[in-house]
Structure formats: C-alpha cells, structure tokens
C-alpha cells in the first residue's frame, strides 16, 4: 500500500543507475526520487555527472545498468512525457522564433495551424510577443533561452528537464529567470528537474536539492528547504534558513573544489 502511494507521488524515479564510459565510472549505484509537481535541483561540482544523469532520464543516453521510471514506466528513450531545455539553447539558427517554439510539436506531427496557435500562446507566456518572426541571432542570450523554454512548455510534457538553463545568460537576466521559474513551478502542474552548479540558484528555486559528489558520482545528501518556500520572492534571499542552507552546502562542497 505504502509502496504504490510512493510511486504515484514521484514523477521520476532513478533506481541503482550505473553509467560507465569505458573504464571511467560516471555514475555509481545512483538512486533518487523526484516528487511530482516540485522542482528538484541536481547540484554539484563539475564532473559529478549531473548532466549525465539528466540525459539518462531524458533517454538521450542509455544507462549501463539500473532503471529510470517516469510516472511508473521505465525509460527506454526520449518520450512525450519529458521535455528538455538545453544549456546552449539548441535553437535552429535558420528558423524563426515561431517555428523554433513550434518545432517540438512539428516533430510530433501536429498540423501547422494548431501548433502555431499553441506556440504563439507560449511565446506570449515567456514574454516574447512581437518577436515571433525574429531569428535567434537577432535575440539576446536571455531571450534565446526563453525561446528554448517556450519550446519545452509547448509540448506539454509533465516533466521538464533543464540542463544548466541559465548559465549562459547574464546575472540580471538570470535573477529574473529564477523568479519566473518559481511562478512557473507554482502555476504549471509540472515536475522540474534542474541541473545547476550555483548553490544560491539551487537553494532559491528548489523544493528539493540533491547534492551530487564526484569520483565516483553519488548522491551525498538531500536537502528540502521548508521555511521560505511560500514566502515572497524578494525576501527569500534574506531568509535565515536560505542563508544557512547555502552555507551548509558550501561547507560540504568546498573540499571538492580545486
């Protein structure tokens, strides 16, 4: 009874996943749950395999052994239940914003009028109205990632996989993105998996933070901030619990930074 309940509560489950590249052990016996409707961050120093784990969940690379379940179903490849947001945006340089946002739907065979209607809605949602006919090279880095986000949202997948989505945008834009992400988690009934190497970012946006340590990669700790999650966006960064968690994570990560 309690086990079935657990399955329904977790959108994604990673069970005993190993990943080897030749002799290199990228992930060793990794087990992790991602609760439905929440944002979980994968945080850790570079080389700890967080992007590898995310791509295994996405079905882009196979695990050497172990199992990944999305809504109780094992992952064998990419599927319509997941959408990926790329660190380098991965936009088609030869296509307009409209076509880029609609591209996920285009690949799924949605007819042009329908998919463009959906795309226009999400372009508006991410704040890019009026740029439908622009090309990616005409946009700033932040705007490009909004296009990438709109593309992932428009396919209406339950799970959003975000691979360091804000690392290539400037600091102010990044803060705005983090605030917008909080509203997104609140308003959309989706599960977010968020890879980052920024401690502050992870603590600011996450319901759950999984700290990954390298050599070999494993989950060292899971932290769930409770006190400030429902507070005003502006006061989170001044919250005592927020600051404590940031300090605590830094204390456990600092030994791994050369």
């Amino acid at each position: 009874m309690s086990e079935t309940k657990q399955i329904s509560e977790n959108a994604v489950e990673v069970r005993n996943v190993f990943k080897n590249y030749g002799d290199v052990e990228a992930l060793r016996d990794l087990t992790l749950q991602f609760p439905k409707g929440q944002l979980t961050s994968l945080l850790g120093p570079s080389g700890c395999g967080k992007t590898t784990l995310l791509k295994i969940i996405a079905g882009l690379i196979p695990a050497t052994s172990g199992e990944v379940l999305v809504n109780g179903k094992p992952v064998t490849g990419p599927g319509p239940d997941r959408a990926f947001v790329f660190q380098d945006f991965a936009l088609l340089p030869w296509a307009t914003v409209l076509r880029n946002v609609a591209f996920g739907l285009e690949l799924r065979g949605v007819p042009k009028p329908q998919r463009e209607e959906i795309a226009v809605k999400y372009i508006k949602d991410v704040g890019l109205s009026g740029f439908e006919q622009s090309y990616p090279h005409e946009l700033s880095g932040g705007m490009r990632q909004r296009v990438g986000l709109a593309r992932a949202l428009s396919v209406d997948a339950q799970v959003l996989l975000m691979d360091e989505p804000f690392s290539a945008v400037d600091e102010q834009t990044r803060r705005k993105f983090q605030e917008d992400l909080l509203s997104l988690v609140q308003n959309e009934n989706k599960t977010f998996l968020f890879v980052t190497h920024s401690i502050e970012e992870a603590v600011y946006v996450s319901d759950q933070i999984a700290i990954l340590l390298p050599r070999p990669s494993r989950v060292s700790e899971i932290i769930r901030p409770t006190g400030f999650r429902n507070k005003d966006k502006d006061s989170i960064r001044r919250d005592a619990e927020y600051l404590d968690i940031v300090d605590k994570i830094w204390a456990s990560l600092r030994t791994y930074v050369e």
Partner: protein
Amino acid sequence: MKLFGYELPQMSSLILWGLLWEIVGRLQITFFIPALSDIFVTLLEISTTKVFLTALSDTGYAFLLGTVSAIVIGIPLGILMGKNRLVDELLLPWVNMFLSAPLTALVPVLMVLFGFGLQAIVITTALFAIWIIVLNARAGVMQINRSLVEMAHSFGATPKDAFFKIYFWAALPEILGGVRIGFIRAVKGVIIGQLLISIVGFGALFELYSSNFLMKHFWAVLIVLFSLAFILAEILAYLEKRVSYYASRRAA
C-alpha cells in the same frame, strides 16, 4: 580598390587586360591572338547560328544532367558519411582518391562502359563534380552543433526528420560551397567529355575552330564558356554568403 579617390568597381582590372589584348591583337604579333574587338564581332555573328545554338544547348543539357545527378547523389551521400562512422570509414578513402585522381584518364574506360553518347558525357561531368560535393556535405554535418541533434532526438524526431530538418539545413552553407566548386569542376568535365568521347557541343566547336585555325571563333566560344561558368559560380557564391549569415551564428 581606390584610384585618385574613386572607388573602382570590382574586376575593373579586366578593362586594362582587355586593352592590352586589343593592342597585341592590332599589332598582329601572332595569328593566335586576334584583336579582342574582332572576337566580339565574331561572337555576335556566330551567336545566332544554328551550329552555335545547338552546341550551347547540347553542352547545357549534358552539364545540367551531370551536375543534377552529382548533387542528388552527392549531398545525401556526404550527409550519410558525416552521420555514420561505418559508412564514412568505408567510403572516405575512395572519395579522397577520386577527388585528387586525374579523372581524364578514366574517360576511355567510361567510353567502354557507357558507349560514345550523351550517357558517357553526363557521367564524366558528374564524376568531376560529385567528390567535392560529398566531402563538403560531410564536413558540414561533422561540425554540426551536437545539442541540435540531441534536441531533435529528445522531441522524438524520426531519422528522416533529423535528416531533412536538422542535418541538411545545418550543413547547408558547406553544401552550397561544395556545389559551387563542383559546378566549376563540372564545366571542366563536360568539355573534356565532349572533346574525348563524342565530338558534340562546345567540345565539337573547339575542335572545329582550332583545327581550322579560326582563332576569332575559338576565342569567342571560349569567352562564352568562361562567362557562363563565372556567372554560375558567382550566383552560388552569393547564395552561400546569404546562408552563412545564419551559419556564423550557429554557435548560438
């Protein structure tokens, strides 16, 4: 280039060379070089004759068939080589070999295999053009942004979708570059074919005029051929420039 404060249009140096040619022709130093103005007069005269028009259409037809087949076969083959390691390992040595091989030496073999008609000429033309098209399409695919491929894969692209919606477009600047150089090589191919295989088209005209020492006619046809090849190459270079506008920002 600027001269006395004036911006000279591109290739205005050709005027200088043209003048030099005219002077040398007028001085009648050698029968081999008639005056440039005479050549143009001859060009106007023969350009309406049936012989010339037939030659033009024969050459154009063979050229078109040859380049179209080189493009239709070469681009997908190149993309496939760029995508698939095994296909690449199998074919790359051959492509490189044919690219640098003296293909003219192969023409007699082609004559044995395909006869003395249009077919052999078209194949010769295609053989001159195709290798650089293959290599460029391959290079274009190999430098494609990996995350574009992952993106398409993550949204469930079929191999066919990935081919036509990602690989082709991502490699387009390089593909066009290959087609441009392929066209220039194909001009060589079609003339060599028409000279060696069966004496038709412009090849026949060159043969006819040079063996009868009709130098004005010979140069006139040569100028027509050079101009056509040049215009084709320029059109493709223009297209290439337009798409590399996107390509230069491909990293984004």
